[in-house]
């Protein structure tokens, strides 16, 4: 029996790992599904939902950009799919109130940064990132 072993990894912790039947996500090229025995693949992930289908149902993650790597059939006949994401969380664990607050704060920061000329580009980029994350969390949790 070949199986698919999915790992969702963030810098702070391994978020989730376990056997799965499929991994569904979107790269900058388009939507894709990884099934057991998928060929060796490396790619990126655009911010969005990564869905993992397991025999007990599906688990979905909100991933704020990242990369994935599939390594097929090692000696043990297991296809490993590793998702690397700087920031990711279980969709079910998104705190909507917090995301709303974060969105407002990020919007304010962005406005302030745009009004004053003195702020450096990196602060602007970080505020923009924060806003994008909050918006993604909200759009994901509404579904």
């Amino acid at each position, binding site marked *: 029996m070949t199986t698919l072993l999915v*790992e969702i*990894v*963030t*810098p*702070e*912790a*391994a978020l989730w790992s376990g056997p799965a039947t499929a991994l569904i996500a979107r*790269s*900058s*090229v388009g939507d*894709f599904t990884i099934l057991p025995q998928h*060929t*060796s*693949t*490396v*790619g*990126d992930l655009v911010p969005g939902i990564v869905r993992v289908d397991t025999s007990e149902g599906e688990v979905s993650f909100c991933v704020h950009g*990242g*990369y994935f*790597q599939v*390594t097929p059939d*090692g000696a043990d006949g297991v296809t490993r799919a*590793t998702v*690397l994401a*700087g*920031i990711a969380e279980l969709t079910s664990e998104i705190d909507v109130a917090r995301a709303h607050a974060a969105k407002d704060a990020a919007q304010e920061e962005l406005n302030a940064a745009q009004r004053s000329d003195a702020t*450096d*580009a*990196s602060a602007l*980029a*970080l505020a923009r*990132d924060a806003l994008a994350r909050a918006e993604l969390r909200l759009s994901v949790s509404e579904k």
Partner: protein
Amino acid sequence: MAGGQERILRRRIKSVQATRKITKAMELIAASQISRSQARIFANRPYRQGMQRIIIEAALGDPAAAEKLLSMPDTVETAIVVVVAGDRGLSGAYNSSALRAGERLIKQLQSQGTTVRLFCVGKKAAPFYRFRGLDVERSFVGFADRPNFSDARLIASVVAAPFTQGQAQEVLLVSTRFLSAGSQSVETERLLPLSVPDAPIDETPKVLKGYTEFEPDVKELLTSLAPRALESEIFSALLEGAASFHISQQRAMAAATDNADDLGQSLTRIMNRARQDSITTEIMEIVGGAEALRSGK
């Protein structure tokens, strides 16, 4: 006055004991932080290794593109140096060894005619370099004890900007690497241009051979991968720095506690002797007085 000496000693013993309490508390706190910060290093490892594997894979997938993107420029006019030190002192040689290594690196680069732009992490770093007349472009403080990934992202975005804009050709990182609980060492590594890790850390290279699909193609992937890999490397350096800091502090404070014990003991001995001496002197005086009275009768 015999009692004066004793009182001074008693006061010193008290002060040594108070200091000992502080160093002991710091030792215990540092010890409790060690295991926590070590656990964070281990939690970070899968991500870091995954990143490195992807870079290796991409570099093997299209060596020509990788060569172009990852190779060193012929001349490095400006180099960015990032030095990671701690926010607090009282940690043995942790800060000074990283800072000195950074200083040596800067001197070496400058002697080769390279302009150095310096970025610092940790409260202890910037004053060290400013005192030595070096300009610190930006200093990141307040998280050296417990770094978050967002801190690493901030540093990465600031440090990568001059590189991507072509103002600098190289980004170097000086930090204390955590090799094991017993050994840490200060190392310098090149962050940008990305260096391809020598070998995958835990896996046999056989899975890396063969045909691999890339989505998008290698060139695009490597370009977008560079800032992410930078974040990952900086984060792991911060985590290892924090763990090294706690270990170093624990060791320094344990030594300080031992010293306070020794000092307290020897001071107590001196005080006891002083007290005994004063008692002896008093008895001698009484006996002498009594003798004088009797012989005078």
